[in-house]
């Protein structure tokens, strides 16, 4: 359907996982400080998430920028909705909004 084949891969990940983080590296071995920061927030909150390593697929690495209309990585999706990148995730977490957003969407977190 879409002109960019990477979009199907991206949409598939977003459809199949409640919380998806498009990142550089893996949750265990992030390859970038910004990706690592988001992993740290999600892990701290006890959120189960799927990490998609964009370094492993050049088409996804470029495609996700167009898909989200967002030029940088990491990018967090919750229940199909784009939440933001590192700055936004950090700001929302510090303001307690991330916890609320996840709760509203029925995502389990460790009770804070």
């Amino acid at each position: 359907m879409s002109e960019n084949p990477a979009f199907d891969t991206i949409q598939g990940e977003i459809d199949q996982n409640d919380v998806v983080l498009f990142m550089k590296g893996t949750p265990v071995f992030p390859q970038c400080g910004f990706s690592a920061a988001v992993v740290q927030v999600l892990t701290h909150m006890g959120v189960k998430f799927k990490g998609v390593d964009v370094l492993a697929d050049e088409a996804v690495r470029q495609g996700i920028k167009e898909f989200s209309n967002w030029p940088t990585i990491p990018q967090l999706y919750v229940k199909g909705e784009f939440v933001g990148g590192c700055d936004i995730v950090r700001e929302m977490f510090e303001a307690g909004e991330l916890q609320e957003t996840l709760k509203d969407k029925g995502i389990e977190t460790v009770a804070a």
Partner: protein
Amino acid sequence: MSVSRRIEEKLIAALAPAGLEVVDQSDQHAGHAGARPEGESHFAVIIVAEAFRGRNRVDRQRLVNAALRDELAGPVHALSIKALTPEEAEATA
């Protein structure tokens, strides 16, 4: 013209900020992926503008990113953005 100066000029032209600070953080990332030997690859922007009123975080950053499209496609590897309305800036000051 330096990359930071270009970032400043483009943001001023696009968003007429009431406050703007562009910080070159490249030295914190020297030698890391995306860092350029000549520096000027990692930036943080704090911008205060009326344009952010009534817009959520994602939309605010999209405004900034759109103004800096060429820089992000070129020398700028990482850009950290804090986008505030004048009232929000005052409240955090």
